[in-house]
């Protein structure tokens, strides 16, 4: 009997150790604050490009519907597509619309829901240069192909006669993860540079001729901020929020355009009619005097069949909310609103989810 108590004591002590492991954190594992009884967590992952507005939306939506939590992890568009395909998230998000071949790899059907318009811009950090630089498409392609290596290269100084550019090496920064921002950027470079199209192409991740990689829009803007003489490409809001200077880019009508709500919206102006047939369109290098050339819609990828009725209802309700109230929040975060006709198209598409 004595042995029994001894071993019981030993075991109790081991159990205590396990508990001690639990009390590791300054705040022991107190249960999460009482959630509503019908609490529902929906998991999503994907693009970092719209991450600021998505996290704002999901936070606001949670305030309106306290029982719905939409957990969005910005692991990149490539990740969103892949994890949706693997079935580990409820829906995905991508800046790159999926082509038919990619869709055929899915075991289920899915619908693209454009959410906002965004712009990708070259951002740079050159000590001593505070002016806005003007970039020609050739300069951007040259820098990213590794053919232009100094800041005082004529291709860069040409459109910027008033700026005193140093002769330092250009530190090229790109995304290290599969990213829709990369897709938009490379899609644009492919349109303006045959060289780029032939040697690199466009995708969420590509074989970069030069440069170092940062993870996420956050990562790239972080590196550009940290490293002098660097250039990177990020979504508009990341440049704005981080006070990074960003350049004007020459559009298809030869004008240098700065990315802004107006110029992004101008780029999407002609898109609505085309989207009647298919929302998966590219609007980089769009026509129009005022169109900023590196723009894109970004998409939520929603499966047409959602077996859990509670999730289905929550997701469709969120989509309705996003197209109405949600759109009112986008401009504060420097994204472009969806054009009205596109909202109508999407409202119809929601009914396909069942």
């Amino acid at each position: 009997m004595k042995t029994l108590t001894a071993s019981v004591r030993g075991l109790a002590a081991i159990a205590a150790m396990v508990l001690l492991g639990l009390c590791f954190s300054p705040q022991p594992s107190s249960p999460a604050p009482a959630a509503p009884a019908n609490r529902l967590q929906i998991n999503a992952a994907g693009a970092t490009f719209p991450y600021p507005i998505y996290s704002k939306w999901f936070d606001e939506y949670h305030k309106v519907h306290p029982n719905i939590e939409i957990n969005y992890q910005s692991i990149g568009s490539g990740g969103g597509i892949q994890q949706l395909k693997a079935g580990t998230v409820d829906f995905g998000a991508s800046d790159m619309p999926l082509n038919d071949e990619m869709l055929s790899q899915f075991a289920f059907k899915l619908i693209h829901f454009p959410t906002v318009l965004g712009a990708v811009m070259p951002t740079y950090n050159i000590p001593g240069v505070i002016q806005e630089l003007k970039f020609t498409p050739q300069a951007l392609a040259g820098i990213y192909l590794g053919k232009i290596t100094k800041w005082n290269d004529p291709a860069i100084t040409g459109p910027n006669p008033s700026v005193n550019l140093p002769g330092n090496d250009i530190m090229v920064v790109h995304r290290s993860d599969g990213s829709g921002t990369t897709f938009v950027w490379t899609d644009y470079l492919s349109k303006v540079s045959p060289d780029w199209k032939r040697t690199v192409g466009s995708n969420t991740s590509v074989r970069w001729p030069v440069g170092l990689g940062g993870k996420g829009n956050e990562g790239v803007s972080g590196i550009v901020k940290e490293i002098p003489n660097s250039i990177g490409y990020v979504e508009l809001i990341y440049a704005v929020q981080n006070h990074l200077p960003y350049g004007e880019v020459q559009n298809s009508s030869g004008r240098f355009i700065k990315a802004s709500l107006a110029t992004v919206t101008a780029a999407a102006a002609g898109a609505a009619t085309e989207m009647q047939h298919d929302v998966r369109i590219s609007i980089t290098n769009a026509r129009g005097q005022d169109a900023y050339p590196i723009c894109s819609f970004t998409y939520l990828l929603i499966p047409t069949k959602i077996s859990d009725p509670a999730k289905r209802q929550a997701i469709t309700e969120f989509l309705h909310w996003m197209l109405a109230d949600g759109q009112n929040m986008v401009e504060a975060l420097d994204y472009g609103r969806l054009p009205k006709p596109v909202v109508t198209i999407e409202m119809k598409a929601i009914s396909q989810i069942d």
Partner: protein
Amino acid sequence: MNRRTWRKVVNGVMLGLTGLCALATVSVLFFILGYLVYNGGRSLNWAFFTQLPKPVGEVGGGMANAIVGSAKLLLVASLAGIPMGFMGGVYLAEFGGRAFPFLVRYTADLLNGVPSIVMGIFAYTVVVLPMHHFSALAGGLALGAMLIPIVLRSTEEFLRAVPQTLREGALALGANKWQAISSVVVPAAFRGIATGMLLSLARVAGETAPLLFTSFGNSFWSSGFNEPTASLPVVIYTYALSAYDDWHRQAWAAGLVLLAVVLAANIGARMILSRKMSSARG
């Protein structure tokens, strides 16, 4: 004579250099601690421990969910890893034969050397893919697999350190072998074994790589063990690589908390051990 002085000089210089090496190595820890306290200490506040993260780019918020998430992961890891490591250690120390214990020790060493990122792949293919969920369970199991070899080795070592006479005494009193083990040998080594477990938990508490694609991340609370779960190390990683000053600030604060917990566990464990040793000596 000249040669003699030369040798003396070499002696002095080289010995001085080794001292410098030791000093440099030791100072790294204080250097790290100093930076964390300096950068993180200012950012530690009540909100940090009690609030959920704010939407991107908004200042404030905390990482209460990540702190609790880390604790959850450790719970799963302990439940999965400690019994297996402990029982395996008992087997090696008390029952072992020849060939099989060699195999077990060898694989345990192998498991111990597995890069943590590979453990993440393993948990992804074995748990996440079949379950169609990132979950605390997957992350915890990855950490648990890392616990096994550490607990196994320390259990075995501390059991072996128990004097043979204790075992013989118990057997002489008519106890079975297992009775001797469970009532005499294990209790005698218990403090050491428990400390080994604590140390192993401290080690996996800071692991990031196995969690990236297993427990994933969560901007809300996760309930139960079947949902994606935020954890301190992963949050430090994402926040540190972001471009937001406020997130950098929180990453430092989280780093300070994590390091404080890990160091406290280590120091505590070693104090327990040394007290035991001195009492054994005295």
